[in-house]
């Protein structure tokens, strides 16, 4: 232990001696935004023992807000007190100062600042030309900026070379290491909509959850979806009331640490790419999110997600949709619906219709009927009759048997006790491929 202690002490000595031998000193300071000084008001009233002493002390304090001394947030700027955290997408700024500590003039000074990341090395110096001479007590100043694009360890490498009066060429380097952290956690979720009965709209809703995983509040200046060429996008994050539209987040313009916010976007395929049966299939590119935030006194950050990809809903071989269905039906009276069957496969199909009743909804007609051949991408409309025996809101469920394709449809309720609102039924389709 002791030996170790001694040796490390000796190391320190070496370093300081080495430093003393250099005529120039290099200092680096990260320039995060300055902060506003906060006071701690302690007040009393005129008739209390200290009289006007406390308020006079506060008035004399240069950092208080004159006329409103009890307001803790003052106007005095203080320089950053520590390195702080730096996050992906933010700009790293730093002051680099090379000072001539000696009493002689130094010549041909070249200061180089490089940033080494895990994947690359960048030159950040504003100028790469040498300064011809530096008098004692003078310094060379440089402020460097760099938008951080990688996560993990970064090393700022500062190199100084110069020539002494005796013509000796000297050189030294210093390294400053820092970690770049991830500021946001982004999760996305897609919803497929098929709301329109007459034509399938193929709208896609994107829900993006953005969580602030830094330790400071974040003002979200912009969260937008840049759609890929196939889609048009509508942002659904404002509620328009009259002329003014209000954000769905209300007046809370910022995200507290660990808060999550949900953004919603509606994507519509452009007409030329409309999701005709089978045209948009498999994984498609939807677009990317562009996020701009600001923190303390306008410290800015920006991130973009990579292309968001979505699995187009697989319709399997057969797609069944409803063309026509009444909102409200009467109890025990037959009513008509029209179904549309589309062949989404590459092959021709031979279709057979089988009807299965549920407890509340019954089919009228013949089960096991042949529907005939259906060629690829073709569709067929079939009128059908149903009868409901139970009143109330019903969920209508249809299913194609080959690939589970799920389609739920809920009708609006009208509340007359005599009426059935809607009925549900299982339609089972059997398809035979040729």
């Amino acid at each position, binding site marked *: 232990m002791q030996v170790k202690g001694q040796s490390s002490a000796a190391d320190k000595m070496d370093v300081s001696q080495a430093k003393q031998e250099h005529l120039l000193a290099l*200092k680096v300071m990260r320039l995060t935004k300055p902060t506003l000084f906060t006071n701690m008001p302690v007040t009393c009233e005129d008739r209390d023992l200290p009289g006007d002493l406390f308020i006079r002390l506060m008035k004399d304090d*240069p950092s208080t807000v004159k006329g409103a001394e009890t307001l803790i947030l003052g106007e005095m700027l203080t320089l950053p007190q520590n390195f702080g955290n730096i996050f992906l997408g933010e700009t790293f700024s730093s002051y680099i100062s090379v000072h001539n500590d000696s009493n002689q003039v130094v010549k041909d000074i070249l200061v180089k600042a490089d940033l080494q990341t895990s994947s690359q090395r960048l030159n950040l110096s504003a100028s790469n030309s040498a300064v011809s001479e530096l008098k004692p007590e003078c310094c060379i100043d440089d402020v460097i900026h760099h938008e951080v694009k990688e996560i993990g*360890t970064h090393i700022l490498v500062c190199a100084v070379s110069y020539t002494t009066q005796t013509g000796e060429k000297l050189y030294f380097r210093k390294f400053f290491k820092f970690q770049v952290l991830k500021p946001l956690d982004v999760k996305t979720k897609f919803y497929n909509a098929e709301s329109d009965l007459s034509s399938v709209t193929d709208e896609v809703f994107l829900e993006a959850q953005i969580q602030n995983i830094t330790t400071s509040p974040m003002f979200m200046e912009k969260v937008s979806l840049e759609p890929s060429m196939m889609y048009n996008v509508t942002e659904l994050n404002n509620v328009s009331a009259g002329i003014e539209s209000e954000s769905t987040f209300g007046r809370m313009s910022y995200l507290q640490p660990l808060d999550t916010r949900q953004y919603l976007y509606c994507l519509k395929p452009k007409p030329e790419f409309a999701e005709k049966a089978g045209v948009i299939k498999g994984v498609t590119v939807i677009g990317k999110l562009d996020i701009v935030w600001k923190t303390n006194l306008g410290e800015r950050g920006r991130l*973009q997600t990579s292309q968001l990809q979505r699995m187009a809903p697989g319709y399997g071989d057969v797609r069944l949709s409803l063309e026509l269905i009444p909102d409200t039906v009467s109890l025990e009276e037959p009513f008509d619906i029209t179904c549309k069957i589309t062949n989404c496969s590459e092959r021709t199909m031979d279709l057979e219709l089988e009807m299965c009743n549920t407890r509340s909804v019954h089919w009228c007609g013949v089960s096991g009927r042949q529907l005939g051949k259906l060629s690829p991408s073709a569709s067929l409309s079939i009128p059908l009759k149903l009868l409901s025996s139970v009143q109330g809101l019903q969920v209508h469920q249809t299913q194609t048997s080959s690939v589970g394709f799920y389609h739920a449809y809920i009708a609006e309720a009208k509340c007359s006790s005599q009426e059935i609102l809607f009925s549900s039924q299982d339609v089972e389709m059997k398809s035979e491929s040729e």
Partner: protein
Amino acid sequence: MDSSEAPAHRPVTLDIDGADETLEASVPPQTDPTEESIDLDAEAFVSPQDDSSHSESLVDKLNDQMMESVMISDSPNSEEEDVVPIDSLLEQNEEEEPKTPDDADTEERIEDVRNKDVSAAEPEEASGALFKEENEGEKIVQVDDKRETVAPDDPKPEAPKTQESALEMDSDSTPKDEAVPVCTIFRQGVQLKAQALIPDGFQPTLVKSPSFTIGNTETPNKLVPQVCQPSPSLSKFFTDSSAVNPASDFFDSFTTSTSFVSISNPNAESPKAAAPPESPLVSAPTAAGTYFTPVATKPQVAPAEPMNKLQAVFPSGDDPFGSALVTSDLDKRRDAWLPSEDTRRVLISVATQQVSPVQIDREQLAMPGLKFDNLQGDAVKDLMQRFLGDQAAMKRQVLSANSVEQNFLGLKRLISTKNWRAAVDLTGRLLTAHGQGYGKSGQPTNHTTDSLQLWFVRLALLVKLSLFQNAELEFEPFGNLDHPDLYYEYYPTVYPGRRGSMVPFSMRVLHAELPQYLQKPQETLDRLHRIKSVCQKILSNLQEGLAEDGSMMNLTQDNRLASIQLWRSRLSRVMYSMANCLLMMKDYMLAVETYHSIIEYEPEQRVQLLSGIGRIFLQIGDIRTAEKYFQDVEKGCQSKGKTANEDTSVLMNRAFVYLSQNNYADAHTCFSSVLELDPKNPVANNNAAVCLLYLGRLKESLGQLESLVHKDPALYLHESVLFNLTTMYELESSRSTQKKQALLEAVACREGDSFNVQCLKLV
């Protein structure tokens, strides 16, 4: 189940983890120089359940990674967290010199803390804004820091190593299946850290300003100032006497100089001094009965009288009755308070003489006592001793509790010369004389107007000195400031006819504000809301034509208006505290709302409040909203007939907006134009210098601040300015210590013992 349905509904995690960059070679991050890509995790087919099982297997590995990255990280805040409490601990201990040599325990503790401080000194250095320099022995870059003659600029040897370490980090997260858990865990890691963390760039502005650092992170266990021992002379002196003579003997005693000179002078151990009933103003409980005649009201209000004379605020007419009545009106207004139901019942029964105070349960009483003694210490002097030698330190002359009159006058002198530590000591002596000294907590005592004022001053100064833990300890016996013996009605013989709270309103506010400095802001809000509701009740009583406490008493119109004005100003003071607390809690929206509602009560502070709200929005980063508030300020100025350029607050606000847009040049111009209007404005001067630094003009900035400090030390020897100055010294050259020592000398000539030496960054 439909398998095709899953991908559409399952949340897909986007991975910002740089590791995945290797995964998605198709989207290289360099393609767009201004933008950063987050990679989408394409692994959509794993069901959520799978995720969790995967993640569990990875937890350890990833935790390791997280741990490592925290340790490698230069993020110095984690270190600062450790440092601050130790620092402040040290500060306290240093000031409390162990009085008795046999107190080995204390000695050892201090020694221990000093050692800790030495070891902590280095990390603290690193936590400065200046980078910590990487020395030899670093894992990642092994090129040493030593001087290399002629330039062998050869980055190659180190480059592969850096790569290696980067790959190490990647390896955990490359396989596709694992990408999902990586992200979630990474997030959790950050969450965990966030709790232990760490003020980042923003936090300091609110919580971590130099004046706030002390005590913020103190842990109660460590910090209970057990170190403090009663100074033997005083405590021995008073233990006996108070048991025999109840403290009532000391009633109002220190308003007369005859009694307390001897009492508070520890050298004069004459037992006579303990019982000075000869004092004309002392009203022994037995004698008090005779004072029930109206004539006698004059001696009863006497406690306040010496103060009146000192302040010369209140006109004292020739007619003693008249002046007494004026005073009593003022008292009534000022002392009004609504006790809790229980307390009210006790007070009524005392007043109707159903119960004599002696019979009241001890648990219902406030029994305060000093919890520590002798804060005396002067950090400036200690630093001088350390850096400038004993001789220089000898020149440092500050007032101490011994060097002033042992009364309110002396106390005021200590406060106004910023010798708050000495002032705390003096309050301790005066309270000891009152029988509420060290170790008296938990013993029944009598309160007087003066004793409570002393407590208020003592506690207020402790808060001002950021000794929150100590203040909390001594506040504790007062409970909610609602004990029956804290009301005048409890002492019908001593204060006949006087009603209301002995506890000054400011002490209630202080009591409410204290917990927020000890990380209990919710408690602060609760207390403030209680005070607020009493204020509102009193105001509504007054508006309904009743007296403050709701009794049917006829108030003259003048009286009522004056009372309404007083209570409105108190209400606004409470609202200020609430808003300040909310701001510290970072509940910005509520804070802004509360500040905004104060405008109604303090219309003359409209400009300051709107500007302040604007600055809050700038702090959040919401520049647009900030500008809206600043525009309101401008409109207000225009309506007063001033052009915008003639108003300092408008210019100042503009400067802050420029600052937030990274436009330091224009911000500097704005601060400079404030100086044309008001050349002595310290804020504009300091801020202009700060802007210069961001513009790369260190020498100019430094020169400006330095000359200010030398020209007008009264204004610029402020911790914020000195902090900026020392930071720039550190950035400028290797000889910052000498320059800081020069500042220390300047401070020593002017500042009292309460100066926060941390801003000099000498230690």
